[in-house]
């Protein structure tokens, strides 16, 4: 079977899929491509592993925690600028 599209494009779709930015139609095309392409299958497998590894190892601060930090920083910046203007 002739390749439907190139490996570069397949990898690009796989990358986007890791961030939920791949279109459904592209994901279908990717799957079709993978049937006949070993190197892209390897790439996809490793890429998913990386995503999982990042998700398992990297924790995220909640939006509330971030907002609280931002509030403290803003307060400090304001305080500094008040001190400077006095």
């Amino acid at each position, binding site marked *: 079977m002739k390749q439907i599209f190139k490996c570069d494009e397949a*990898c*690009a779709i796989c*990358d*986007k899929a*890791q*961030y939920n*930015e791949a279109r459904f139609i592209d994901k279908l095309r990717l799957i079709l491509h993978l049937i006949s392409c070993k190197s892209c299958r390897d790439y996809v497998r*490793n*890429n998913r*592993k*990386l995503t999982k*590894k*990042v998700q398992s*190892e*990297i*924790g*995220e*601060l909640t939006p509330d*925690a*971030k907002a*609280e*930090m*931002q509030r*403290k*920083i*803003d307060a*400090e*910046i304001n305080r*500094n600028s008040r001190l400077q203007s006095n």
Partner: protein
Amino acid sequence: MSENKLNPDKWVKRYANYLYNYTIVRVNEHEVAQDIVSETFLAALRSKDNFKGNSTERTWLVAILKHKIIDYYRRKNSIKGSAEIQVDWHDEEQEGKWLEERVEDDRNMNIDDLIENEELGSTILKCLDTLDEKHAEIFRLRTIENYETEAICNEFGITPSNLWVIIHRARKAMVNCLEKNWIK
């Protein structure tokens, strides 16, 4: 971003998750880590005149963070919780300032980062330090800080296709690095 200037209003968005992850592997308590990161930002604001642009903003923040982490253990290990000592001042202006408020950035900091991450910490952060600086930054913003693609493109003045090429290279390099370091 490449001129190494400070943008305190963007710190939380850009570095909070990264610093949090750096901290959590070292203190192992969610709330403590969160407080330490918060204190780090404030200490950085108070000492922003020490930043000369020799290192990246992130590296400088990590250097301050390290002092905060040490402080935390110092406090924790002292019986009365009063082992914080303000020492080692060299002039009157600096007198009485906390050590972390006197952190200056120098070029060796990047090397420090590498060594530290080698000894302790996550393989992800360690591998991130082996990437090209710009690629690492973009990968970090998109993957760890969850920046929107468009926001990163605007910030770096690149097109989405540039961004995906960079992400692709970064992911390939990360996979290679992780394969070498993966504890099986």
